[in-house]
């Protein structure tokens, strides 16, 4: 498959059922176009990992029944309140939840990026977050004395998915100051990106742009998706669609309302 896919669906081929999928936080650039396409397919049994939080994206995937497990430090609709489908799924016990804390996710992705098996992190000791994570360990700092510290296993996702302002035709992706997207891509086995536009030229040729560029070397597939973060914002490019997010929060409060939302804005291709 060409790096620049002909269709969004082609670009998402790497995200199969049971995939461990890393998704970005709202301010970093979220591929909502890809999220809607995955729900239309529909993808099943995703092991979702948010770096380090999620909002509408995780709520939609959970509500649509696409998620088996979720690792994150929070899911919230921000000023539009709690994420209703996430909260309902946790209360019903229908998804496996791994509660984390933001720097733990950053550190675990960085461990994968370095190719090492774990990362140490301060904090956490005495917290119920740690108590509910049998996969995390506490050791005594081998360079200190009576200094307990938490070790986190590296997180190497099958696929990282995000939305970015632009890519060139060689597959280099401009991420600007959203450096954690580079960490996500370095950590994941494959990275799939949707972009606002394709650039004729070489992002790596201009030193000003190269510093904010993720090399095509890390990229599995790119699809063009104009306003692909909608209704979430693409910071520095466009704002969130506040009216739409308010409508989502209202509809998603009930399973019936959520089903109407999916019908109207996900399954109806005009909306995507």
């Amino acid at each position, binding site marked *: 498959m060409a790096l620049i896919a002909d269709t969004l669906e082609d670009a998402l081929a790497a995200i199969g059922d049971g995939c461990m999928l890393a998704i970005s936080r709202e301010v970093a650039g979220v591929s909502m176009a890809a999220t809607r396409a995955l729900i239309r397919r529909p993808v099943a049994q995703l092991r979702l990992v948010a770096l380090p939080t999620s909002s509408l994206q995780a709520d939609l995937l959970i509500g649509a029944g696409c998620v088996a497990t979720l690792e994150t430090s929070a899911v*919230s609709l921000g000023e539009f309140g709690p994420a209703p489908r996430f909260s309902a799924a946790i209360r019903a016990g229908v998804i496996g939840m791994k509660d984390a*804390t*933001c*720097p733990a996710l950053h550190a675990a992705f960085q461990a994968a990026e370095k190719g090492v098996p774990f990362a140490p992190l301060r904090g956490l000791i005495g917290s119920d977050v740690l108590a509910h994570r049998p996969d995390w360990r506490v050791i005594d700092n081998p360079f200190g004395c009576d200094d307990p510290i938490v070790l986190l296993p590296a997180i190497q996702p099958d696929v990282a998915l995000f939305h970015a302002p632009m890519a060139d035709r060689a597959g280099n992706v401009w991420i600007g100051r959203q450096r954690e997207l580079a960490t996500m891509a370095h950590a994941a086995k494959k990275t799939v990106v949707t972009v606002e536009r394709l650039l004729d030229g070489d992002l790596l040729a201009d030193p000003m742009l190269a510093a904010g560029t993720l090399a095509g070397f890390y990229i599995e597939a790119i699809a063009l998706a104009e306003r692909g973060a909608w209704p979430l914002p693409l910071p520095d490019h466009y704002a969130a669609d506040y009216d739409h997010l308010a409508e989502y929060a209202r509809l998603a409060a009930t399973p019936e309302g959520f089903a109407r939302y999916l019908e109207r804005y996900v399954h109806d291709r005009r909306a995507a």
Partner: protein
Amino acid sequence: MTGAPPDPAWRGEELLADVICRLIGDARHVAVGNASPIPAAAALLARALGNGRPYVSLLQSRKHNFFTDGGRELFDCAGQGRIDVFFLSGGEIDGRGNINLVSIGDYDKPTVRFPGSFGAAYLYYVVPKVILFRTEHSRRTLVPQVDFVTAPGTSASNVHRTGGPFALVTNRCLFVFDRATKRFQLVSVHPGHTLAEVIENTGFDFDRPVDVPITAPPSPHALSQLRKVVAPELAEAYPRFAAEVFGTREPR
């Protein structure tokens, strides 16, 4: 802030921002998380009153935020001791300074689920001055014992702990946290509220002086800085809040 302030010269949000600003004190770097307009106003007020210091990082802002190395930079900064003041809240906060941002009831099948811990299970340990802020002061939020400890108020002596709770600001009053006794102490009750009401609405025991003072209102200078300097800065990150409280023009 519940209820109208007794003095129409200032609003409840302005009082709280001023109280928090005074708690910030002499700091080099104050960071404010998402969805925290009143702490953000307080940090910007501290900067306005301090002629450009402390450095202020508002995570919700593009402009008042100097981080360029992704989401991890805040936490790396904090781990090194480069953040002096941060703000946390909790679905539940208990009398020993434990905070709960996760759930109520059985963890595996809770009756209430909150968004999650965010950075609290780390920042509470490593930021020297964590100011707890909760505008709902009730027995539902200020409880004897949290159901889930997202982060403990204090730690065993061998646990690396350079930070922790410093104060708790609510819509009714100001507490400080005493790390030696592991208890909150009531400092002052906000104008328009009473000690009896604070006791009635607090689910945990706390210490208090014999005579509990009324929280001092913002000075005319602080109010003027809030309205002239802070309000337009705040409007970039919190347009709706700034429009409602300060009457800045809403951009959309």
